[in-house]
């Protein structure tokens, strides 16, 4: 099944209004339902080296290893487990590549990147993330933050040290506790979620959610629901109108129709003629 029909998507990345270059990077493979967003960090141009390596390595790696034709033969549970395993493998592979590059190139020393990966298949989405880039889901009128930041602030929230209201005033917003490419090993956080028709999935860098509050994001998603490319433009524009102090990226995936995989020989035979 070609997922680019069931999933409508759009993405936009922008340097913002203060930074002179963009260390965010987005990449997608709509035909296999794969969306990747990374927000790089590190001196000079190293941040964009890290985020660029992460997105292209993971996208290319999964395009090669995740073969929907093959996966279609598996049971749904097996497909979920395989999706998770392959996503993890590619994330770990990208980590090694970025880490090695930073060790061997002084100008890249210390570079790293945050990451969100979404792989859609058979009415589920496999999500991996590292750091403070986020995935939000709008279902009906309710927006939820699907990923939990790997950040100092999130840990302070979890431990009850500060309240969500106080968190907005914190001076420690920019500290992540995990990143890709910083250490020789990395443990991405992975989860699988069921999707429903008309769900909207928003991948974004902190340049969006630091500049535009969640309620404004939610209203934008609801209001412009039918038009993903306008939605991402509007979100990036809102971040810039509010100051655009960081690079800002948004990737939006709309589940236009269910994308269940046909199983059993008869179903597969029929699917050939669709």
């Amino acid at each position, binding site marked *: 099944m070609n997922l680019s029909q069931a999933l409508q998507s759009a993405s936009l990345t922008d340097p913002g209004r203060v930074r002179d270059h963009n260390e965010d990077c987005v990449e997608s493979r709509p035909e296999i339902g794969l969306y990747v967003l990374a927000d790089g960090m590190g001196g000079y141009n190293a941040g964009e080296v890290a985020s660029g390596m992460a997105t292209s390595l993971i996208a290319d790696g999964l395009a090669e290893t995740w073969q929907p034709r093959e996966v279609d033969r598996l049971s749904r549970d097996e497909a979920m487990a395989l999706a998770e395993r392959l996503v993890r493998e590619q994330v770990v592979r990208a980590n090694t590549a970025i880490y090695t590059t930073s060790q061997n190139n002084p100008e890249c020393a*210390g570079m790293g990147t945050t990451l969100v990966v979404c792989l859609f298949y058979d009415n589920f989405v496999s999500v991996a993330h590292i750091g403070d880039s986020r995935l939000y889901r709008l279902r009906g009128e309710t927006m939820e933050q699907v990923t939990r930041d790997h950040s100092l602030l999130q840990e302070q929230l979890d431990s009850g040290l500060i309240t969500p209201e106080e968190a907005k005033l914190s001076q420690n917003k920019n500290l992540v506790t995990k990143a890709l490419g910083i250490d*020789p090993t990395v443990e991405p956080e992975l989860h699988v979620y069921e999707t429903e028709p008309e769900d909207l999935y928003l991948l974004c860098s902190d340049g969006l959610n630091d500049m535009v509050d969640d309620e404004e994001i939610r209203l934008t998603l609801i209001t412009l629901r039918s038009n993903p490319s306008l939605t991402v433009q509007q979100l990036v524009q809102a971040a810039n109108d509010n100051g655009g102090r960081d690079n800002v990226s948004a990737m939006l995936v709309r589940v236009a129709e269910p994308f269940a995989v046909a199983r059993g020989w008869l179903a597969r035979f029929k699917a050939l003629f669709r």
Partner: protein
Amino acid sequence: MAKLILSVDGQVLKEYTLSKERTLIGRKPHNDIQIDNLAVSGEHAAIITILNDSFIEDLGSTNGTMVNGKPIKKHFLQANDVIEIGKHKLKYFNDAPSQTSPADFEKTMIIRSPAKAPPPAEKSSSDTVTNMRPPAPEVVKPAAPVAPPPPPAGHAEHAPLPEAAIQVLSGAAAGRTLDLTKNLTTVGKPGLQVAVITKRPNGYFITHVEGATFPTLNGASLGATAHPLADHDMIEIAGVKMEFFFKP
């Protein structure tokens, strides 16, 4: 680094830098900030500092701790907060970039506790900084701090945007006015033809959202891009004419 200035009756007594993770305030000599007054408990309050953020916590003192005139148990300190303990006042100064300056959005950095630095070891977020007093974190700053970024262009000095509305001129709703108070207002018929009017710092704009054909603005097709709206512009969408105007 944040600091506290201790004063009594408007007289400055001493200045303290919040360099420790936990700064004790009390009457007894072992406190970091000793206030030798009977209204002050032996160990009265503590200030917990995590990088650029500081919190004050009352340690069950007899006479309590106030911040900006209100009794507190725990409080997240903001620049210029005034802590009152008996007749003594401690004013909190934080020269970290304030919330409103662009430098606040420092580049993202990674923070790790040295114990779990490089090689193998299983890592989960739970073993990093979960409790009140994290192990002194090692902050890896990827780049030398650059000059403060220029103020965001076009953001600061906009005259306040005048209020605007649209009035429906034809169709069933003719005569109705719709105030454009929200950042996004959609007009048209869902499924047929919809446009959105966005309220931005530099004006109002109209953009096509859905429908096979584009709405018109002053008789010309809107196309796929955003158009600024001027006073008395005529919009036609889903067969309905409407006028955009600034409110007097």
